[in-house]
């Protein structure tokens, strides 16, 4: 107990000091993205890992959050920072609608519906040009030149989301979420309104993902439908972050976010320019191999199977 607190304090301190020590914009950028993915991965994990409702469409919430911020700035002339609040709320409303429609059904319907929702939202954002500028995308002016404000905001958002997820999972809601995942009939007979609590989980999950989306709009200052509503780069990435880090653990998605951003960037940059250029095209392939490896040898992810990993390394002299 005490040791884990020391570790948490050490990680927190390291993250706070990181941009003051490492001045490179490039590395700061990577950690900002990783921190954003801590939020999205944790959100996905709350819904899929703990509540057992697997989402293949978290891009819906991410994109809704991003577009809320973008449209506020672009159409209404309000600072895109307002999107941080409103982006979460609109994403949560979208989440509620999807949950209201799908959660009365059991089994894989929710997962299927989320894939469909992702495509629907991407198409809407592409075609409704008067609102979203379509394929042209939305561009705003970045508020800050320095990466530091974005860095600390991302850090705050990641910490806040993890704090909330941890709090929720130690409460009545957390027990209900896991009960629903383990056996919906048993949960219902124990007095748990399963439809309601699946929606509660989805609401929290979509809210934080929407906030991450709004942050992305503010930080990158440019979005288009193929980026923020992407099945591949957002929805699937959210699943990978969760699975590789460790489903149904608080720290899993956080670690998974750093691993995935690291792997993605290593290959995207052709192993930092050392390998031939075609390597950069292969990062999806590497993701696939990574997932196969994790599912075969550490089905509970890096955090979930940590004791196993530790044993493996300690056994060697």
């Amino acid at each position: 107990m005490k040791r884990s607190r020391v570790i948490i304090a050490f990680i927190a301190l390291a993250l706070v000091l990181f941009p003051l020590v490492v001045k490179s914009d490039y590395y700061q950028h990577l950690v900002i993205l990783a921190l954003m993915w801590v939020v999205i991965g944790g959100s996905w994990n709350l819904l899929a890992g703990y509540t057992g409702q697997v989402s293949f469409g978290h891009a819906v919430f991410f994109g809704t959050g991003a577009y809320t911020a973008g449209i506020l700035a672009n159409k209404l002339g309000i600072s895109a920072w307002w999107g941080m609040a409103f982006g979460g709320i609109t994403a949560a409303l979208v989440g509620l609608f999807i949950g209201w429609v799908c959660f009365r059904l059991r089994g894989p319907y929710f997962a299927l519906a989320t894939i469909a929702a992702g495509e629907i939202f991407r198409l809407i954002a592409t075609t409704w040009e008067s609102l979203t500028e379509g394929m042209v995308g939305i561009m705003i002016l970045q508020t800050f030149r320095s990466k530091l404000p974005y860095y600390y905001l991302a850090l705050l958002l990641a910490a806040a989301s993890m704090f909330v997820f941890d709090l929720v999972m130690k409460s009545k809601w957390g027990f209900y979420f896991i009960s629903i995942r383990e056996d919906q009939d048993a949960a219902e007979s124990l007095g748990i309104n399963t439809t309601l609590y699946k929606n509660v989980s989805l609401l929290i999950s979509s809210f934080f993902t929407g906030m991450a989306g709004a942050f992305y709009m503010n930080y990158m200052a440019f979005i288009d439908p193929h980026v923020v509503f992407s099945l591949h780069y957002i929805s699937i990435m959210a699943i990978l972050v969760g699975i590789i880090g460790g489903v149904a653990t608080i720290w899993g998605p956080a670690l998974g976010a750093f691993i995935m951003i690291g792997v993605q960037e290593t290959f995207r940059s052709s192993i930092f320019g050392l390998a031939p250029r075609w390597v950069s095209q292969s990062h999806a392939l590497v993701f696939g191999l990574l997932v196969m490896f994790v599912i075969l040898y550490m089905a509970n992810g890096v955090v979930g199977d940590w004791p196993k990993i530790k044993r493996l390394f300690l056994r060697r002299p």
Partner: protein
Amino acid sequence: MIAVSFFEVREISKRFGGLMAVNGVSFQVEPGEIFGLIGPNGSGKTTIFNLINQYYPLTSGDIVFHGKSIKGLKTYQICHLGIGRTFQVVKPLKRMTVLENVMASAFSRVNTFGEARKLAMETLAFCNLLPEQDKAAKSLPIAGRKRLEITRAMATKPELLLLDETAAGLNPGELDEAIDLIKRIRDRGVTIIIVEHIMKVIMSISDRIHAINYGQTITEGKPEDVANNKEVIEAYLGESYA
């Protein structure tokens, strides 16, 4: 003044396609009694439980608790009203510990972590499951799982408890413990409806027994009367034994 019955099913029926799984069954349960429900395999006992806790909607008839119809309520609302149940095919929340299983159900009566833990610990102690509290539910043997089902149901503080074959698959020693537990639950003032195949259990603890076959009532009465009933013997052993 007409006394309001504690619990009553009135002419309930359930049709699955062309099959009448339950066909016009009626009975009343008095507060504080152990009410046995017997019948051969496939006679509709578990279906009656699924109708009572509204897992299946009724085809016809009505179910009344404290004088009010509970027809059409949701399963979780039935639990909040004070009707708990166990499942014949046990449904432990596998990847949670025994304590967490019971806490999840205790949250139906209390709101904070501390209160839920306290209620869960008390219930575990009452059901003699306290030594297993930190084990994963999936690691329990069948006797433990059956006991966990009862413990979880008890943590929802039911007035009426539906026990679905909680003694099936137990060895003689475990059987005696199960009978003892059921009696202690009754002594706490919880009314029990019990479905059971093992005659030793049902005959020794039931105050009254209701026998069904093919979804229809055969007879109802004191255990010894039901055991000697011609139709009941026919249903269980075949005509030549009657």
